[in-house]
């Protein structure tokens, strides 16, 4: 059903300075779907997410429809308040601002949930520390997840969620990413798992270079980003298998052929 599409990107072009990084990108994400974008370094993955959030430094043309409304001209905070969340690859450190007070300012959820999730993410001691100051790679990613779980967006962009994370942390990050996306509901007295799925399932978009995170989270659709366009759509596990076995060169070969088809 077309009406299920909550995020719809049409003919997106993005420039950084005078360089065109995204060149006519199209992508549709349905309610409750999680997509992954693979792509070699420099293919424009992070540029894509930054443009989705509306960060400065990007000139954007084309449409970004969220629940049918074009958000491509809205400031960052309005996009966030509409229900778009981003897990940063490398979020900045904010000296003097405690993680707890940041989350309490931005959270839509009640207070005791914060402590509960902080404990489960092994972050209790971090709530009274300055945001990301002196945090390790894994601690940063866990803190990002904690912020997003309490921010409770409808669609979540995850920028390289596994980067800088050691093996010990990656399973925990995978588990809570699933939870954030509403993919690991726990049944309770009133609701069945099926009910919970219907209520809680969120949409997501994961950007990954290595694909390791796919061992831990469920992804419905995969794409390859090449030279500023979406090269193909498909089963994410199969695509990742191909990329792992043959590298992005194989994708590139296929991509060039399709480009020719488009031109001819």
């Amino acid at each position, binding site marked *: 059903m077309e009406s299920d599409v909550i995020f719809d990107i049409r003919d997106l072009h993005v420039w950084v300075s005078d360089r065109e990084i995204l060149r006519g990108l199209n992508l549709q994400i349905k309610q409750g779907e999680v997509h992954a974008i693979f792509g070699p370094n420099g293919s424009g993955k992070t540029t894509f997410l930054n443009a989705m*959030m509306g*960060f*400065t430094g990007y000139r954007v043309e084309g449409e970004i429809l969220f629940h049918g409304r074009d958000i491509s001209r809205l*400031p*960052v*905070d309005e*996009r*966030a*308040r509409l229900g778009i*969340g*981003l897990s*940063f690859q490398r*979020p*900045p450190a*904010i*000296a*003097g*601002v405690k993680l707890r007070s*940041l989350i309490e*300012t*931005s959270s839509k959820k009640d207070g005791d949930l914060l402590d509960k999730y902080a404990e489960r993410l092994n972050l209790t001691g971090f709530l009274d520390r*300055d945001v990301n100051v002196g945090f390790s790679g894994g601690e940063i990613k866990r803190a990002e997840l904690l*912020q997003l779980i309490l*921010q409770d967006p409808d669609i979540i962009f995850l920028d390289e969620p596994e980067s800088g994370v050691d093996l010990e942390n990656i399973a925990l990050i995978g588990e809570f990413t699933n939870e954030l996306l509403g993919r690991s509901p726990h049944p309770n007295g009133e609701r069945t798992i099926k009910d919970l799925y219907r209520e809680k399932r969120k949409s997501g978009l994961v950007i990954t270079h290595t694909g390791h995170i796919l061992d831990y989270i469920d992804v419905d659709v995969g794409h390859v980003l090449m030279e500023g366009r979406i090269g193909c759509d498909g089963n994410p596990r199969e695509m990742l298998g191909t990329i792992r076995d043959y590298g992005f060169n194989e994708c590139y070969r296929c991509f060039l052929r399709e480009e020719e088809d488009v031109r001819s």
Partner: protein
Amino acid sequence: MSDHNSNSRGELDLSVYREEAPEHAELEDLSRIPADEQRLLRMTGVDPEGKERSGSFFQKDHSVVHCRSQFDGAEILSASVARDKYEGLTEYWGKAVPVGKDVYTKRAEEHQEHGYFIRSLPGAKVHYPLQACLYLTEDKLAQDVHNIIIAEEGSTLNVITGCATSPQVRSGLHVGVSEFYVKKGATLSFTMIHNWAEDMAVRPRTGIVVEEGGTFISNYICLMPAKDLQMYPTATLVGEGAVATFNSVLLASPGSYMDVGARVILKEKGCRAEIISRTVSTGGSIIARGDLVGEKPGIRAHLECKGLLLSDEGFIHAIPELKGKAANLEMSHEAAVGKIAREKVEFLMARGLSEDEATSLIIKGFLSLDIVGLPEELKAELDRMIQETDAEAM
């Protein structure tokens, strides 16, 4: 800044200020003062109820209206009374700040009206702070005070000083000579909060002498506008292993001029010093100075001036200076002046904060130094002050 009542060297036209002030009656109970004045005092860290305080001193214009000690291990007096009591305080008076140092120390000697004398007895652990408030209620008045603090051998002493003007005052002059003596093994923590009227000229002149194994901690906070503020306290560490720390937090709005720094002279082996300042200009001018002089081996000292400049008006001029005079010492400095990183603002906006909320949160975070040695309760008060600092001004 044509109406700025000082030339480029910070000299003021002193003839515009009045010397005479009406006498104010003594106050048994500080909590009887009007609610709006109580609020003013609280904003300078002074608790009118005197709760969790070992003693209070309250000087209104030229009159000491309240002076009580609630703890046997410490005394608090008018400096003039203390001079009568202790043979002129000749060991201390004019020893850390020479009387002839400059035009302000000279005028303080000529025009002095009280100021406080605070002393902790040898070995006394004064748990709750003593508080002193210097309050100006007459417009265009010159208030000249001389303060003495003595932390006797092995004692621990906390002092909170609040300086404020009443709401009807627009301009005035405050000159305060302060001489602090930290004896062998003693610790003095001194916190000063300024809350002046916009057109005030302020000239504190402070000297500190720290003996062997003694520790001096100074916290200075000025988040309210001050038209012309100039201070450069100097701590001289005269005994082995003496320590001095200066923390300053300044916010200069348009029209404010703050020339604030600290100097530490480390004269003996194993002395340590740290000078840290966080300054924010929303259009005011700030000179953030720091000067460390190391004279013996085994000295460690660090200086850090960080400034956020949020407007093209005004400026922040960081002047860190280091002078080492012996081998085997370690001295360093770190200075930075800049704007708020766009990346940080947008990170917070991506969490749903508006641009203004994000900016103000970053500034408040920047100013909220983790000040070591600040009493818990005052730390909470400082956090609250920073939180309540007019976001508009930022």
